[in-house]
């Protein structure tokens, strides 16, 4: 039987990982959808409208799952971490309250968008979509402030274990907020863009090289590539901030065991906590000092500066960080390949399309890995330097049971949703793709009302 702390962390992780996929799609898909609708209005070309309608359906499915799994998270904050919430609810609440408004606006205008194709003028309909895309992005930015505060708590005084002199805007004053919000927002667009591109690459590999598929691929990759190119810049901001404010986390994610000047960047490899070494790694001399502090000779704190009990899990943090960066780099390369081919006025070749298919889940892999770095790297703290995770956990027995139940629930929902999205993805609308008409089944009319 696993203990309550492990089970609670696992349940939080399962719930967050599940929610995060839909939260990211809820931010990314509406932008794709309004881009397509905007192009439809501007050019009058029907296949853009078909794309917008298709993406709206995907948004409808994923937004609903994101909304209910997000509700679960707001309860789980208390169900799994009541002592943490008793301590910090009054501080991080402002982030959730403002996010609540943004999310409310998103839900309202999504209802208008999804069901308003015939009831609203084209311009009003597009405007509703713009509001959905904008408020979705804003709600993500606002809620990340709560996590930023947990990483870098400010705006209160600790007196006898209670927070006093609380600044209600504390989450937004956390210096971690800006770069975390930037990094996570970009990651949502990257993950959504590459995932959507994969759908159209599959279609084109099956011979459907019509305007609908080509535009779907190009639009999705345009969003994905622009954001993927910006991501290393925001990642650099993050790294420098973490180096300054959470040195133990930086040391863990870089598997940097010993404090030294001119520290090398350790790429890949398996950290061994017992011996303080990293096997099978590539070392780039002095690069870590440069990346962390902007100076090739700067001293970078290693894990040996911290008591062992305050180390995060080095293996997980380091590997997750490598996965995130690796996926990000691969995706930048993939985007560059596509636009280079396009710039040379070449039709995307089969190998390029195959690469887009293979690369389509990597954005989500990177997003999940990045959150693992953030959260595992914060351990053993729930509020960095203030409250240990084990001191925030619920005293209720039975968390292993709810962990099991929620894991099964999310697995079933994930499989069902993947199946529905696959049905949605196969078969272009007949108007733009006569060749695909034969594969079309009833799903197009399923939601005609």
């Amino acid at each position, binding site marked *: 039987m696993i203990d309550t702390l492990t089970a609670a962390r696992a349940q939080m992780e399962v719930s967050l990982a599940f929610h995060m996929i839909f939260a990211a799609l809820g931010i990314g898909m509406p932008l794709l959808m309004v881009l397509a609708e905007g192009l439809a209005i501007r050019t009058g070309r029907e296949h853009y409208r078909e794309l917008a309608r298709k993406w709206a359906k995907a948004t409808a499915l994923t937004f609903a799952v994101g*909304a209910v799994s997000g509700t679960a998270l*707001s*309860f789980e904050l208390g169900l799994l971490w009541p002592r943490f919430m008793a301590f910090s609810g009054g501080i991080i609440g*402002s982030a959730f309250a403002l996010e609540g408004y943004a999310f409310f606006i998103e839900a*309202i205008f999504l209802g208008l968008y999804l069901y308003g194709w015939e009831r609203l003028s084209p311009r009003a309909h597009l405007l509703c979509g713009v509001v959905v895309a904008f408020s979705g992005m804003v709600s993500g930015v606002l809620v990340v402030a709560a996590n930023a505060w947990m990483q870098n708590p400010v705006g209160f005084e600790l007196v006898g274990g209670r927070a006093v002199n609380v600044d209600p805007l504390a989450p937004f004053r956390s210096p971690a907020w800006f770069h975390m919000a930037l990094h996570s927002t970009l990651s949502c667009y990257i993950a959504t863009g590459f995932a959507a591109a994969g759908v159209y690459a599959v279609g084109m590999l099956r011979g459907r090289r019509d305007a609908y598929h080509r535009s779907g691929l190009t639009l999705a990759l345009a969003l994905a590539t622009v954001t993927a190119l910006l991501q290393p810049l925001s990642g650099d901001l993050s790294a420098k901030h973490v180096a300054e404010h959470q040195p133990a986390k930086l040391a863990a994610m870089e598997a940097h065991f010993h404090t030294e000047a001119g520290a090398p960047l350790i790429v890949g490899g398996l950290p061994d906590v017992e011996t303080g070494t990293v096997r099978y790694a590539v070392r780039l001399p002095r690069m870590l000092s440069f990346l962390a502090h902007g100076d090739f000779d700067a001293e970078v704190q290693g894990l040996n500066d911290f008591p062992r009990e305050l180390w995060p899990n080095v293996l997980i943090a380091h590997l997750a960080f490598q996965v995130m960066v690796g996926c990000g780099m691969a995706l930048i390369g993939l985007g560059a390949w596509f636009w280079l081919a396009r710039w040379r006025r070449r039709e995307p070749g089969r190998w390029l399309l195959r690469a887009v298919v293979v690369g389509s889940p990597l954005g989500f892999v990177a997003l999940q890995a990045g959150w693992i770095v953030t959260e595992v790297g914060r351990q053993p703290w729930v509020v960095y330097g203030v409250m240990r995770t084990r001191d925030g956990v619920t*005293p209720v027995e039975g968390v292993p049971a709810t962990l099991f139940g929620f894991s099964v629930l999310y697995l079933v929902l994930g499989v069902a949703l993947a199946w529905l999205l696959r049905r949605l993805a196969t078969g272009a609308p007949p108007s733009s793709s006569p060749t695909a008409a034969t594969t079309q089944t009833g*799903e197009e009319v399923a939601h005609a009302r």
Partner: protein
Amino acid sequence: MLVELVAGLALVALIAYAVLAGADFGGGIWDALARGPRRDAQREAIAKAMGPVWEANHVWLIFVIVLLFTGFPSAFAALSIALFTPFHLVLLGIILRGAAFVFRAYSPQSARSVRPGRGARRWGVVFGVASVITPVLLGMCLGAVSSGHVRVSGDGAVRFEGPLPWLSPLALAVGAFALAVCAYVAAVFLANETEGDLRADFRRRALWAGTGVVALSVLVLPLLRFDAAHLWSGLVSARAAPVLAVGVVAALVSGWGLWKHRLRLARTATVAQVACLLAGWGIAQHPYLIYPDVTLHGAAAPDATLRFVLWSTPFGMALLVPSLWFLFRVFKGPALGLADRDDDGSA
């Protein structure tokens, strides 16, 4: 006063959730109970009524939770410990209800007819069952909070007096009551939003559900008297009784309106009925959040936080209210859709 205002805000959000999302849960109940020659048409009318608005309606619950943990963090912690199991079951219901509703809507239709396909029918069952259990569980949680059997000590430890409070007779009765209220609100709303035979179907269902509401209130009252005397005395006190009296009058008006085919009047009165009921409960609970150990003032967040919550509300509402008005005008308004055709038909 600051504390009371924030608590009042949470109560208003709870009322909005009960009326709006309650109607959506009720829609699911009538989906599960759909029968007769117009079974598919009933389900379609329910899905049509819910589709554009259910997600916005659902957000009111998130507001209640956020207001609770922002304004009263230690009470939120105590409730999360005390109601660990029913809250998890509520989440199960909420997740399954929402997911099943969209999964059904986007499932392929069966190849040969306009009937929903097999996948859609299965998700329809999940949707209906989840819509039934969720309001019952929410009602049970509400009953447990008021039961007086959840004891919270100064260090935040929680213990129960007697058996599990959310399974007490009172909590079960409140759960059943919540179910009946949701079914009633939904049927009244649906009767307003349909026409012809469907309207007759939903009006008849509203009359049945209304009878259930009355019967269950008769059951709950003695239970309150003996199982939660503090709440009973709060309800009959000079503070709460006038509000509840208005609620009873509204309930009678809504029943009369239904009977006399004055459906718009019935709808307005139903909203007033639910609002007064919950407001009366909230006033009777005052000054306790969890009787008898957790008071509003004892659990309140620092003043600065409460002030932020209050000051941000007008700005948030300035965005929300026009948006909500627009949403309901487009999909439920008299100038568009079914109600429009109905007016033409009767002219």
